């Protein structure tokens, strides 16, 4: 082999504490090194050109660049050697900046270490082989999981881009949490008015197939070629016949059915359409409360339905869809705040969640938009808002900030004044997080124009005073005093958690999730929409707390990623994947058992069972390689021999 070594000075970044010329000189004595030099800036245009020239001039068939982290410039230099006609995998990097010059003070030790790292890279390179990517077809359809505002945005953008979309929603209607909101900050415009048209677009778009009351059951396949099984729950209403006229809901006698859409602030009927703007606007029977289904007698809805859509015998159904990409937009749920026994643990009717308060504010809510407190239906005069209930609280294992509570609390305080001009509002807060556009101004309006009293401190206890009001015991840390308020209504800004079932879905998607069930993006800053499973993208709060504008932006971003992926007819698979040596394989299945991606299958080879890597599924972790005792499955570009070469370069006594 003829290897060229380029020891970068990176200005004084490396050259300051490493004798680069000496490293290059030492490198000339390493086996197979035909050329070594120490350029000032290797990644700059002239530096890259110099590599290309050297490859031609010295007939190099491999290049080592000793400079910054490969996480920074490996792709850059791979392209450089490729331009000069080498295979991109005949290139190695030695990280002598982040791992040497920036962390060590002793120039002699640094120089020595840099030379060793170059030697390590040279030894690795001597065991490298040219690798080539293979190509496969893409099924240009996308699955969007979750019909909240993020999912709706992703679905609409993809559909507008010409891509058929399958949208799966667990609830009876799309719209998610945003559909439950009365108004939105910082403009205080009506949530239903801005979300409604988008929901209708979803319903009417020819490219979008919507499954409501449905959940993803199983996912198999890989980027470009996923197969998804979707479980459609029994709604007991044939939606192809249901016109959404609502005749059934008027006549249904089971009027004590819990109203999940209204966050249990009221009750509804067993057959029900979630809210007037529901999409799809179809009735659904709640089997637990339906008299026909529980007791076998009633049948009122079937009698009154003008189209004969009621079908009490309906069974759930599994449908299969083939897609090339998946957007997860499963949103969030409120945490179960009843762990706060000091706030009553849910037994005081006038201590409610912020989402319940939205329903009380909303004209389509159970009180028709009049703020009436649950216990006695009276208008509250003193309303206390408590922030960070279940956020930033390590004692209950929720150290994170839920992100948008500060803003909606300000909004709710403003709306309270709009509804009850004489009301006094208090907000207990720890820090106000209002970094968005026009956000801080909005919060200040709440206190300056709407007279909301902001009190910096947490609330220790909330309890009834025995005279119909609630005692709120808090602190004003700015005053350095204990404070106490008698409130008519207390609204808790309850923290968010990943939506129920998120972890289960993550396992199906084979994507990572954090300790709290939020899905992990590929890179916190630079790949915030991608996951580590190719072809799976994230949108909205399922990835972490965010407000509506950010959710919508991420929905669009996810759609852009899907469209980018689908811009090509063929996809290339990364050649850095595992490969089976058929002779050595004894078909013991150990690799197959531990592969995190299900990328290994059994195959027949001349009558014998052998392992086979599904190239498009393999992600290149190499777990199989370190599992196989026979050494029969080798991760390309990180084979046993390549790593051994590195170990031997360092340790050889």
């Amino acid at each position: 082999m003829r290897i060229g070594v380029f020891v970068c000075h990176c200005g004084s970044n490396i050259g300051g504490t490493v004798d680069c010329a000496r490293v290059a000189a030492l490198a000339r004595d390493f086996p197979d090194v035909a050329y070594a030099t120490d350029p000032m800036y290797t990644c700059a245009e002239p530096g890259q050109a110099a590599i290309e020239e050297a490859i031609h001039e010295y007939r190099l068939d491999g290049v080592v660049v000793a400079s910054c982290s490969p996480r920074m410039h490996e792709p850059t230099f791979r392209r450089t050697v490729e331009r000069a006609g080498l295979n991109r995998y005949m290139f190695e990097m030695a990280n002598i900046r982040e791992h040497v010059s920036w962390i060590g003070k002793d120039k002699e030790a640094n120089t020595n270490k840099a030379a060793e790292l170059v030697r390590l890279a040279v030894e690795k390179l001597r065991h490298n082989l040219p690798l080539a990517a293979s190509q496969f077809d893409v099924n240009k359809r996308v699955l969007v999981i979750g019909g909240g505002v993020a999912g709706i945005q992703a679905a609409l953008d993809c559909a507008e881009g010409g891509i058929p979309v399958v949208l799966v929603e667990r609830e009876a209607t799309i719209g998610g949490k945003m559909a439950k909101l009365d108004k939105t900050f910082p403009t205080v415009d009506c949530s239903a008015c801005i979300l409604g048209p988008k929901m209708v677009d979803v319903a009417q778009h020819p490219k979008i197939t919507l499954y409501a009351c449905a959940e993803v059951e199983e996912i198999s396949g890989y980027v470009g070629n996923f197969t998804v099984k979707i479980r459609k729950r029994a709604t007991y209403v044939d939606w192809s016949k249901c016109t959404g006229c609502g005749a059934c809901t008027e006549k249904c006698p089971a009027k004590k059915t819990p109203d999940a859409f209204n966050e249990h602030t009221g009750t509804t009927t067993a057959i029900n359409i979630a809210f007037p703007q529901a999409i799809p606007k179809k009735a659904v029977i709640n089997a637990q409360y339906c008299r026909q289904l529980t007791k076998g007698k009633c049948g009122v809805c079937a009698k009154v339905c003008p189209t004969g859509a009621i079908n009490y015998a309906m069974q759930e159904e599994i449908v299969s869809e083939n897609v090339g990409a998946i957007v997860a937009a499963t949103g969030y749920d409120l945490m179960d705040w009843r762990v706060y026994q000091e706030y009553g643990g849910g037994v005081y009717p006038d201590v409610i969640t912020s989402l319940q308060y939205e329903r009380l504010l909303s004209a389509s809510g159970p009180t028709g938009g009049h703020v009436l407190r649950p216990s006695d239906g009276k208008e509250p005069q003193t309303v206390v808002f408590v922030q960070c209930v279940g956020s930033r609280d390590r004692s209950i294992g929720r150290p994170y900030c839920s992100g948008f509570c500060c803003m909606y609390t300000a909004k709710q305080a403003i709306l309270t004044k709009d509804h009850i001009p004489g009301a006094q509002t208090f907000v207990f807060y720890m820090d106000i997080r209002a970094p968005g556009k026009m956000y801080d101004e909005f919060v200040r309006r709440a206190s300056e124009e709407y007279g909301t009293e902001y009190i910096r401190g947490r609330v220790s206890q909330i309890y009834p005073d025995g005279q119909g009001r609630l005692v709120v015991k808090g602190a004003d840390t700015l005053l350095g005093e204990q404070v106490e308020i008698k409130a008519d209504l207390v609204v808790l800004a309850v923290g968010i958690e990943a939506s129920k079932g998120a972890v289960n879905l993550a396992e199906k998607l084979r994507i990572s999730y954090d300790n709290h069930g939020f899905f992990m993006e590929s890179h916190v800053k630079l790949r915030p929409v991608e996951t580590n499973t190719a072809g799976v993208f994230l949108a909205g709060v399922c990835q972490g707390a965010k407000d509506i504008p950010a959710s919508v932006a991420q929905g669009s971003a996810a759609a852009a990623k899907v469209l980018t992926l689908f811009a090509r007819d063929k996809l290339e698979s990364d050649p850095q994947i595992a490969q089976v040596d058929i002779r050595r394989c004894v078909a013991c299945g150990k690799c197959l058992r531990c592969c995190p991606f299900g990328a290994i299958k059994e195959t027949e080879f001349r009558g014998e069972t052998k392992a086979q890597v599904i190239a498009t599924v393999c992600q290149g972790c190499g777990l199989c390689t370190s599992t196989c005792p026979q050494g029969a499955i080798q991760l390309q570009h990180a084979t046993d021999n390549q790593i051994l070469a590195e170990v031997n370069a360092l340790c050889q006594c």
Partner: protein
Amino acid sequence: MNDTVDLNRMRDTAFTAQVEALSGQNISACYQCGNCTAGCPAGFAYDVQVSQIMRGVQLGLKDRVLRSRSLWMCLSCSTCSQRCPNNIDVAAVMETLRHMARKAGIVSVPKMEKFWLSFLNTVRLFGRSHEIGTMVLYMLRSLRLHTDVDLAPTALAKGKLGLLPHIPPGGAEPVERIFTRYKERAQREGVRP
């Protein structure tokens, strides 16, 4: 007191570290939410609120913290610890600070110490606590002769207060030895017993 807090001069990080070590609590975890203050049943009698004491410890304002009267008014009810969102055992910090103050000879509310010592004296003498004994000793120490005398008639009438101390069958000597050893050790280590 109203002087600018000169953080270059007044910060005593060793103090913060010592409080952390003795109490076993991570003081830097406190983000000043005020929950401890909010729930404190003695807060109204404090000169410095609990959360402010925590802040003082964070900043290493040793003198200000150890001189606080609040340390002596803490009821040790642990409401603060129970509700701390950062899992800090605030009551343990308060107790640690009180012990540190005592050892440094700073007793901002002497009557509290007097009461405790009176109580412990009866325990030392009789092996068990004795209400009237405690009260008499306390009145003598604090010169508060009127203390609770209004209650005594009722309590005596109801047979709630025994005039004679109740001494364990084996005598009070084993308990007295504990106190003696404790006192000796405290003297050896040069701290206030």
